[in-house]
Every structure is written in structure tokens, then in C-alpha cells.
């Protein structure tokens, strides 16, 4: 017979999980309902599902563009951030320039600044540079915002790679770049994946900056959700439900396949588990 405490523990865990998952389930189910079905009181748990919302969704103008913007901005910004962060964290780890500890603290504190606090200066700067609604400009902003966290994760991993690897390569004729990309990089792959997933989710979900300094050519899905929620008949719930359901799929798939790397990300590489 099972331990009663363990049974209670499992019930509590399931209750918390269901509580937090229910809004997601609601919006996902809503995407298969008619507009009246979504707003019905009491809510319909059993209903005839329809794919009309999806058929309608893909005929809407610019939907593909929003997705493309979200994907390209997220992937490009995070890849750039990881490249820069990898070089920076190697430098911090191996050469330990003066005030490394302070610089690392400063980097992390940048990430702790709430986006709302940087909106005005960023807006003024982007207006002055003429970078508003500029794909490269927005991508650079996201990359900049992704660098601190990536440096923290990757430095933890690179610290764990013995310097004897570097030295063996250098003595045998390898260059520093060879050491970086052929010796160290393959050994910190879990850290790279963790940094990628964390920052991808951040950029994918980012709304405020995109809303303020973005525009028609750089609108991502979170912004599209806001600007497309109402039509002539009020709130367009079927569009919201369908777009949200499709929008949350990529992070869910990524988290499902790479969940073991998230732990190393949350602990800055100090807890590696079986990755």
C-alpha cells in the first residue's frame, strides 16, 4: 500500500499543475470553438470542435509575416547573443581580466532591469538613430538583452572545462580560435543549448519593446495579439485563441525536448545533472 503522505503529495502536485495549466487548456480548447461557444455561460466542456478558426486565421493578412518576424528575430538575436557571450565568457573564465567579479555582477544587473525602465531611453535612442521599425535594430536590442544571462551560463560551463585541454591544444599547434571552437565549444554544448532555450523564450515572449520601437515590418506575435484583438464586432476571441494556441506551440515543443537543459540554465551551469 502506498504511503498516505506520498498520495497527498501527489494530489497536491496534480492540483497545482491543473490550476496553472487550465488557462492554457482553456485557450487551446477555445481555438476549436465558435465565437458563441467561447463566450457561453456556463463554459462548454463538451462541444463539437471546428477548424473554421484555423481556416480563417490563415487567410488573415500579415499573419505569416508576424510568425516569420517572431522566428527570425528570436533565432537571429539569440544566435548572435550566444556567439558574443561565448567569446566573452571564455575571456572571463580563462584570462580573468581585472574586476571580473564586478563585471559579471554588472552584466547580470543589466538583465535585472525591468524592460519598462529602459523603454524611454531605448525609444529616444532608436528614434535618434532612425532604427525604429528596423529589423536589424530590434534584433540587436534583443541580442543585447540576451547576452548577460548567456555569459553567466556559459562562464559556469567554461570554468568546468579544464585549462589543460586548452594548453594541450596550444602546445600541439592549435590557435586560440581552434581552442575556442574545436576544443571548448563541443564540451559546453549543454550550456549553449540552455542559453539558447532561455533566451529564445525571452525574445519570443517579449512584447513591450517590440510594441514601442517596432512597427509594421517588425511586428511579432505578442504585439500582433494586441493590435488584432478587436474588430468591428468587439473582441475577436476566435482570433486570439487561435493565434495564442499556435504561438505557444514552439516554446512548449522546445521545453519538452530540452527540459533537462533548463535546470542548468536556472543554476548558471552549476548543477548539470545528466546533460
Amino acid at each position, binding site marked *: 500500500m502506498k504511503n498516505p503522505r506520498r498520495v497527498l503529495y501527489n494530489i497536491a502536485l496534480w492540483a497545482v499543475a491543473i490550476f496553472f495549466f487550465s488557462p492554457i487548456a482553456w485557450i487551446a480548447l477555445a481555438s476549436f470553438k465558435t465565437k458563441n461557444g467561447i463566450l457561453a455561460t456556463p463554459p462548454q466542456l463538451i462541444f463539437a470542435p471546428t477548424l473554421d478558426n484555423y481556416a480563417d486565421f490563415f487567410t488573415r493578412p500579415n499573419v505569416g509575416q508576424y510568425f516569420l518576424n517572431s522566428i527570425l528575430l528570436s533565432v537571429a538575436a539569440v544566435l548572435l547573443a550566444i556567439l558574443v557571450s561565448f567569446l566573452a565568457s571564455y575571456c572571463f573564465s580563462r584570462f580573468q581580466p581585472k574586476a571580473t567579479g564586478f563585471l559579471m555582477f554588472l552584466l547580470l544587473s543589466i538583465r535585472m532591469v525591468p524592460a519598462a525602465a529602459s523603454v524611454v531611453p531605448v525609444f529616444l535612442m532608436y528614434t535618434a538613430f532612425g532604427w525604429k521599425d528596423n529589423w536589424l535594430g530590434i534584433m540587436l536590442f534583443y541580442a543585447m538583452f540576451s547576452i548577460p544571462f548567456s555569459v553567466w551560463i556559459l562562464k559556469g560551463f567554461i570554468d568546468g572545462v579544464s585549462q589543460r585541454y586548452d594548453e594541450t591544444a596550444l*602546445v600541439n599547434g592549435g590557435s586560440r580560435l581552434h581552442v575556442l571552437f574545436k576544443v571548448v565549444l563541443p564540451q559546453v554544448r549543454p550550456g549553449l543549448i540552455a542559453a539558447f532555450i532561455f533566451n529564445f523564450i525571452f525574445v519570443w515572449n517579449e512584447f513591450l519593446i517590440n510594441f514601442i520601437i517596432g512597427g509594421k515590418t517588425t511586428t511579432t506575435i505578442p504585439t500582433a495579439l494586441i493590435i488584432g484583438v478587436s474588430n468591428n464586432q468587439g473582441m475577436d476571441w476566435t482570433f486570439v485563441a487561435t493565434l495564442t494556441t499556435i504561438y505557444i506551440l514552439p516554446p512548449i515543443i522546445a521545453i519538452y525536448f530540452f527540459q533537462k537543459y533548463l535546470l542548468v540554465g536556472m543554476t548558471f551551469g552549476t548543477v548539470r545533472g545528466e546533460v
Partner: protein
Amino acid sequence: MSAIELHGVCKAYKNKPILHNLDLTINAGSFTVIFGGPASGKSVLLRLIMGLEKPDRGQILIRDTDAAHLLPAERNIGYIPQSFALYPHFSVYDNIAYPLTLARVDKASIKARVEDAANRLKISALLNKKPNQLSGGEKQRVAIARGIVKDTEIFIFDDPLTGLDFKLREQLFDDFKRLREAMDATFVYTTSDALEALMMADEIAALANGQIVEQGKTEDVFYNPAHMQTLYNLGFPPATLLNGTLERYNGKFMCHTQLFSFPVSLSDTGSAPTDVRVGIRPQHLCVNERPTPNSLKTEARIILLEDLGGELVIYLDKDGFTFESVLPHAKDHLLNGDEAVVHVDPRMLLVFDPQSGMKIGQGVE
């Protein structure tokens, strides 16, 4: 001809001197062991030779060429690090082939040389495995194979047997000696283990206080050490060090210690200090055996007997001072708590300056 020379080399980290005015000459074709205690600067010395760090001062010559501006790769040295440093994402074959791949040697030559190195170290069956599938001894053999596959005649071993079990280390002692003879190369090997140094070295360079305090043939350094640290560390159990005072008597010097008083022959009578340290190897202290006419005697109590199979270690106590004796065979009649007569040939008592640690004389009959 020398393979490596260091002249007046200094190196400090954060103002803490590690190596100070160090001079060292490593003869071509020798198996030179740089012997020193933990954190004595052995690895720093090797890193300077390999060009992984620059000296603060001094000159390093490799093959009679000033190495100041040579990159690590340009020094053409085979390197076997302490921690194996096998690349986990490479197979054993690729790990061994690594120096050749970097040197852009053609694939056929790489294959032949990797197989030759693997045969020498008896790891041919492991070539397709990944490092995480190997035992500690196998990993070390792969690391050695990677080091020796390089087309060079100078090889550096940075304390490569640390952490391996004794049996494995013994096997690798043989491997190293065989390899050096077969390759006719210069092996520079660091260790803090006396047994490793004594079993493998043609020459020992003793590192203490950031300097090479003595260098010479293994037998000379062992039997006639010039520095107190060498006497103490190079041997098992460690040598006994006694506090002594020198006294001039009728133009001769007598040394008084807590165990023996004996006449001393000093190398420089003019500058001899009053307080000295006297060292004696446990193997030279005899217990309850028939003394020679000139041997020195004292009485002590046996506090512990350790039978190591081939030899017997006897722990003795005299008025609160403990020391050890080693007999080459078991003695059934010795018991804990027994009073024993300890005697020594006075010529085996070495006298050191406590400040510099250098030998200033030894006992005479």
C-alpha cells in the same frame, strides 16, 4: 649537449614569488625528474618551458635557441598533462592523432603513427572507444600515446601518475622507461613522489623554495643529498631531522643532537653556524643489531612496528622525540614497548645549515 636550459628564471603570481632565480640544465637524451613537494612550482616550471606562461625574468633556451619569442607550438615539445586532458568528444584514435592532425600530416602517416604509438602502449584495442569508456590507467596510456606520437625529441610529463593506484603506476614506470630508451628522447618528468623519481630518473633536479637546490645522477642525489629537503622528501619513510649544535673542540667540530653526539667534518669551517640540522635516513638506523666499533649508540623505546612484508618499519621514542628505523627483514623478537639499542654509522649523519637548507658537513668516525 643540453636540450633545455633555464638561467635566472623568476616567476611570481600576484607578487607571490613561485620561482626565484632558477637555473636548470636538462641534458639531451636524459630522463630528468624534477622532484619537489606539492605546490613547489613544478607545474609552473613546465608551463614556462612549454611557453604557456612567460617568465618575469631570466632566459629559457630550447635546443640552444632562445625561446623568449617562440609560441608553445613553435617549441615543438610533446606534452603529457597531469589530468589526461583527453577530448571527450573525440575517439581514442582521434585523441592520439590530434597533434598530427593539427600539424596537417597526411592521413596514411597519421594512421601508421597512431597505430605504432598504440602498439607501444598496448592500447590498440581501445582506438574506437570514447575516453569516458576507459579506466584511469587506459586514459593515462592514451594521454601518453598522444604525447609521444608527436614528431619531436623532447617530451614533458606533468606528474602524470597522480591519483592512479600503485599497481598501475608500477606498470607505467616500466612503460615510461621502455619508451625513453626506445625513442632515445629527452624526458622531463615532474613528481612529488619519491618512488617515481627513484625508479625512473637518470637525473634528479630537486626543486625547493623556488629554486633547483641540487641536480645530479639519481644515486648521487639519493645517497649524498646536498639539500635538507631532498634528504627529507626523497625516500620512504622520510628522513629524520634532528636539531643540533656545533661545538669547536681542539680544532675539531663536535655536533650534539637529542640522539647522538659525533665529530663532524665541515666543508667550510669559517662560516659554520652554531645551530644546525642533522639528517639521517631511517634505513641507516639499526635496531638491536651488532654495532660496528665506531658506530654511535642510543637507547629508545619501540612504540610501533609496521611489517611491510619485505621490510619492517620501527617507530621509536626517546624522551618524547619520535623517529623511525627501517630494517630490511622482519624481527620476531621486537615488541611494542621494548627498550631498544639504536646505532648508526656516524658517516651517515648529514649536517645542514638550517637557514639555506644546504649541506655543510657530515659525521666522521
